[in-house]
């Protein structure tokens, strides 16, 4: 058994005066307090990476900064899937008896710590340095290629994708810590400036500062009683030019492993926490895993199915598209919101009945997939 005993986060967006370590420290303290624990109780620490603090040993940098001496610590890198991957490993560490309480923490001043061009160039390196980056490719360009093909193959429209941006923004208006809280319309998404067509500005997540953390324990220690019931991964390629089956990028394979371990199915999930770096990312993941039919994400959004009152409440914190993207912390926020929803602590955003949740992180360009099933105990 492993529980997400406590969670915490800083505000996301432009946080003047913040640093990778300040954001991580603030989030870590909040999560440890939420778990009803003290710093000295943490004996494992996992962190991700930070493009504004590219240290080779970030986990011990953070441990020292916090003043803890873990018996197990290292950083991890699986792109946007890193947050869910850290929690998956933390679960193994507490279930095996290696650790009692593992702090998983992410944070980065990605918005204020570097120029926009620096950020775009650093992130573009997820592409192949020799066979993709030299063409002036960017992360939006890789996802633009995904979007063009997926729209062609399954009949998804720009309007369908725009609906997803609108829904994520509507959700973020209810979260005080979200980066983008001004409501938007489908017309505004369609009229926003072209970035890497068919993707436009409002199809893309913002670049944010932010920190977020969770504490994983063998038994619940705080108010929340949220158990990890299953997890799985799949890694089929790194570079988009090497992806083979565009209808099966690894998401369904990863999810199937998590569902098999949990003894549950797609239809058992009452809350969805699905990676959404771009509108197309969200559509592809929801459709490949099977929560909606192929090309059905837009109609589901229009029908209100992804809202607080819908049958598939989705990313009620606002997702990467509107809560914000600060690197590892971006995809981690989905999991943290799922824990709050499962424990009935999501305030204005709370969905009415959330006994189960599905979490999915995607790193690179549909490259690394990590899925997790959570349940309320």
């Amino acid at each position, binding site marked *: 058994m492993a529980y997400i005993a406590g969670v915490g986060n800083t505000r996301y967006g432009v946080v003047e005066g913040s640093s990778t370590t300040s954001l991580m420290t603030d989030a870590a303290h909040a999560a440890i307090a939420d778990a009803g624990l003290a710093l000295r109780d943490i004996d494992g620490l996992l962190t991700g990476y930070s493009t504004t603090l590219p240290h080779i040993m970030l986990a011990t940098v953070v441990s020292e900064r916090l003043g803890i001496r873990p018996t197990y610590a290292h950083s991890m890198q699986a792109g946007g899937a890193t947050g869910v991957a850290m929690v998956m490993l933390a679960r193994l560490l507490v279930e095996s008896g290696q650790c009692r309480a593992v702090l998983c923490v992410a944070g980065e001043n990605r918005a204020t710590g570097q120029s926009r*061009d620096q950020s*775009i*160039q650093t992130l*573009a390196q997820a592409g*192949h*340095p*020799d*066979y*993709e980056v*030299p*063409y*002036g*490719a*960017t992360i*939006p*360009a890789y996802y*633009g*290629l*995904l*979007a*063009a*093909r997926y729209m*062609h193959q399954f009949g998804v429209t720009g309007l369908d994708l725009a609906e997803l941006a609108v829904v994520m923004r509507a959700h973020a208006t209810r979260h005080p810590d979200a980066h983008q809280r001004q409501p938007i319309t489908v017309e505004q998404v369609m009229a926003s*400036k*072209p*970035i*890497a*067509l*068919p*993707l436009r500005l409002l199809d893309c997540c913002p670049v944010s500062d932010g920190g977020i953390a969770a504490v994983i324990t063998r038994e619940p220690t705080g108010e929340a009683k949220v158990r990890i019931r299953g997890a799985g991964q799949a890694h089929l390629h790194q570079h*988009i*030019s090497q992806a083979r089956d565009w209808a099966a990028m690894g998401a369904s394979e990863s999810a199937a492993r998590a569902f098999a371990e949990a003894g549950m199915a797609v239809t058992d999930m009452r809350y969805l926490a699905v990676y959404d770096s771009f509108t197309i990312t969200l559509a592809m993941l929801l459709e490949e895993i099977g929560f909606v039919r192929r090309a059905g994400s837009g109609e589901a959004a229009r029908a209100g199915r992804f809202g607080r009152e819908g049958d598939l409440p989705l990313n009620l914190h606002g997702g990467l598209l509107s809560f914000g993207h600060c690197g590892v912390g971006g995809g981690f926020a989905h999991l943290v919101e799922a824990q709050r929803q499962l424990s009935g602590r999501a305030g204005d955003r709370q969905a009415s009945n959330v006994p189960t949740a599905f979490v999915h992180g995607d790193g690179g360009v549909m490259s690394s997939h990590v899925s997790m099933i959570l349940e309320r105990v």
Partner: protein
Amino acid sequence: MSEPKPVVASSDPLARAWWAGVAEGRIGYQRCEACAAAQFYPRERCAACGSARLAIATSVGTGTIFSITVVHRPPSPALQAFAPYGIALVDLDEGVRLMAHADPGLAIGDRVRATFALFGDRTTPKFVRAG
């Protein structure tokens, strides 16, 4: 006058050789002599069977657009002069897929042929409508 820049500053000799070919108007790929698989990008071993017996071949330069995006927001000010530019995944007739530049007016399924054009400080393959 500044010194002429090297064609490419890669740490991978296979990539340096590939871009040297592009500078001379060739799109190279590998053909496995053990299992006959065609492979792009160039690797030390065949990713299908593991053999190290890989022959270098040159594509005739024709293929089909698998996907295409038009980049309006380049990664650096130096590339702004080229924007908007098309980046495509092209399925070459030899059975390999590569990323390359492409005419922004092209669509998925279009038949294309390779040309070569200067982009920033290097020559890159750029696909245009065939025929």
